[in-house]
């Protein structure tokens, strides 16, 4: 199961964080620092999977944004890698330029895709459907 998801920019500032397993605030901070340090310091040739404590981290870089997912030991890393890509594609489709000012909308999308650490839906149109409805309601 997916334990947490972080989106970080190149300087290491967190743009989005979602935890699927309860972790204390204090520990959360140190976890984030460790994870970010671990992933940002890796070079191009190194593989995208890192072991950290009892999680496996899968990370992917998109221009200046890093997406990092921490999963439990028994997950298929390659599948999670694909999931990350899927998520970014969905974001891309909705926000025509990925500007992260609408944090709550990103959360909505994320919740449509992943619930409690497991994948719910991977079809882009179905994920975005509620969001589009929401937008229509807000306009009217």
């Amino acid at each position, binding site marked *: 199961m997916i334990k947490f998801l972080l989106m970080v920019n190149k300087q290491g500032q*967190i743009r*989005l*964080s979602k935890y*699927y397993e*309860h972790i204390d*605030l204090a520990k959360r*901070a140190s976890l984030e620092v460790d994870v970010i340090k671990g992933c940002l310091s890796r*070079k191009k*040739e*190194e*593989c*995208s*999977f*890192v*072991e950290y404590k009892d999680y496996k981290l899968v990370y992917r870089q998109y221009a200046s944004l890093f997406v990092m997912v921490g999963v439990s030991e028994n997950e*298929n*890393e*390659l*599948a999670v*890698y*694909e*999931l990350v890509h*899927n998520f970014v594609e969905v974001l891309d489709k909705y926000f025509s330029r990925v500007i*992260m*000012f*609408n*944090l*709550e909308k990103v*959360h*909505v999308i994320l*919740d449509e895709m992943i*619930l*409690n650490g*497991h*994948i*719910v*839906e*991977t*079809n882009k*149109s*179905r994920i975005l459907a*509620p969001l589009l*409805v*929401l937008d229509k*309601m*807000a306009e009217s």
Partner: protein
Amino acid sequence: MPAPIRLRELIRTIRTARTQAEEREMIQKESAAIRSSFREEDNTYRCRNVAKLLYMHMLGYPAHFGQLECLKLIASQKFTDKRIGYLGAMLLLDERQDVHLLMTNCIKNDLNHSTQYVQGLALCTLGCMGSSEMCRDLAGEVEKLLKTSNSYLRKKAALCAVHVIRKVPELMEMFLPATKNLLSEKNHGVLHTSVVLLTEMCERSPDMLSHFRKNEKLVPQLVRILKNLIMSGYSPEHDVSGISDPFLQVRILRLLRILGKGDDDSSEAMNDILAQVATNTETSKNVGNAILYETVLTIMDIKSESGLRVLAINILGRFLLNNDKNIRYVALTSLLKTVQTDHNAVQRHRSTIVDCLKDLDVSIKRRAMELSFALVNGNNIRGMMKELLYFLDSCDPEFKADCASGIFLAAEKYAPSKRWHIDTIMRVLTTAGSYVRDDCVPNLIQLITNSVEMHAYTVQRLYKALLDDISQQPFVQVSSWCIGEYGDLLVSGQCEEEDPIQVTEDEVLDVLEGLLASNLSSPVTRGYALTAVMKLSTRLSSVNRIKKVVSIYGSSIDVELQQRAVEYNALFKKYDHMRCALLERMPIMEKAAANGPTETVQTNGEAEPAGLEPKHPPTIIQPANQANDLLDLLGGNDVVPVISTAPAMKPASAGGELLDLLGGLSLSAPTPAPPIPMSQPPFLLDGLSSQPLFNDIATGIPPMTAYNKNGLKIDFTFERSNTNPNIAIITIHAANSTEAEMTNFVFQAAVPKTFQLQLLSPSSSIIPALNQGPVTQVIKVLNPQKQQLRMRIKLTYNHKGSPVQDLAEVNNFPPQSWQ
């Protein structure tokens, strides 16, 4: 009060902050504004404020004052409010706060709401952070929603059910009827989440697992779905790079794995589909590889037929050759898991794996190293070792310790020749010497002692290497020990294996003195060096120089060194006649299999295997100031008491029952064995270690009664050690037939000069009355000359309050015990 700013502006403002302090200031200001807005109970802007609060929370600032506001938002009727409220609840609340219980009612109402999106929200929140009480209350609702025909809700309900099951495992049965139809859905989202639900149920409860296997015919259903996925053409809905819904495929494969594990029928049903997936999936993109990876894992776990397994390993082999490092990593990980079971198949890919040792990526290198160690066997040891040694040279420090111990283990198991073994170990010590574990020093020393013919070669090579570098402590310790032992061979230049080098005595002593004086040497190393110098006093002729060195260290600040130096000095001055005997060559040490001596003598970290020359007088573990008393025990007795120290055994607790040569300085607790009777010269003993018995085969030597007086009866039973036929193991059984128990029972024994005796500690020092439980003790007797065994025994105990002592001679040993 002006309208609070929107989240967007807040984010923009915060991003403009250049320092942490600026950011903190902005946040505090905004935080204060939000707080006052909450106090005003402003409904219109609450949503906005909470959104901002969540953002601040994500950045790490305190946001607990927003918790109640979240609840108010949830209770509102507007969807946007509810949305933010639930999001806030998920992020800010968890079951530790009492506030969350207030949500239960809201969630309940929302689960029955008319709008599916609201229901969806409620399900999502419940599924993320519902506590066990909430889950119990709302499980019924969730189950109802699991049965609806609305696929949007169904998939969320399934995952919510997963959460409920995790929190309250007893409710699992409740969801069972609902799962019957889940798999007949067309909607992939529902399929996916149902598979997750089923997986969770199967993992949690073996009953469920067997239920699903037999009754539900789950496997055929899953196989059918998987087949449809593969066979169906392009479906735009779930296509990822040409493969339809890889996420679902992977999930199904995982469930199949759980179902097939250990179960023949299910495994058989899956064989075809697995083969199909393995062969038909396109591997050009990562997606295909993800599916293949999952397939391989499944094949390995279930009881698949061998053809399928070979197919799986070949796929892994192909992965290893792939350019993508992710895939190589994944392949190495899986190979590691399978190497135990399918060793031969993995061997075929050995060369690729060894190549991976040179990869740049740390995780790949580590995996490759572990896998290489698993693949080493008698045939490929030489080639593999070359690669591994090269790896050791160039790898990061974090690997060196593991690599070094791995190399030692492998070398021990498969070394083709002693010389190769010693060479390898020396190479490891010189390259990664500071990273090897402490217990390898005694191991190595024992190995060197055992290979008698290699002594000259070994000491010569060690000496040469020592000249280059004295910084690696374990290496230096081993070298100084060897030089101490075999210094004479070094000086006389007798090496056959290599060209002998010319070394003078002075040069050798220079080196050792250098070690003693150097800042790089640890105290333990210095101890080794000093003892080595001392040993050389009998082997080389420059005794005066050695005397000088030893006396210098008599005033050293390091207590350990000082003590040694003082004792060695004493040896020179008062006991010079004993010096030769004491410092003679070490006997070959027996390596007991896996018997870690339980008594550790390691308080100063020293693992020096001080063995004793058998024929000569004893040393006893007593503080050094009683060392002089020691010597009173020598006597010109015809039956010279013999104590041998247990040789340094495989040191799990490193060199446990060691006797330090002159005084057990490091011992705080002398052996649990019988105390030394200072006033009784001939009967020395000792029970140093509490080494467990060899479980040898009793060789049919008849037992005998050695002593029977005053109600105390001592029987001897015999066994022959199967590691050395000259050693007889005698177990004494002491039984007490009187009415009062005998306390402080001490058994001591002495044997003639030609024997060696070792006494282990007794099972207890109290013999219960009326033959209730004999006390046993083990004696090992080495009889290399096969002379007739005689023994003088001394017994001391307290009986009915008064101490009793008795001496006896035992001559009636059965002939088989000493032949």
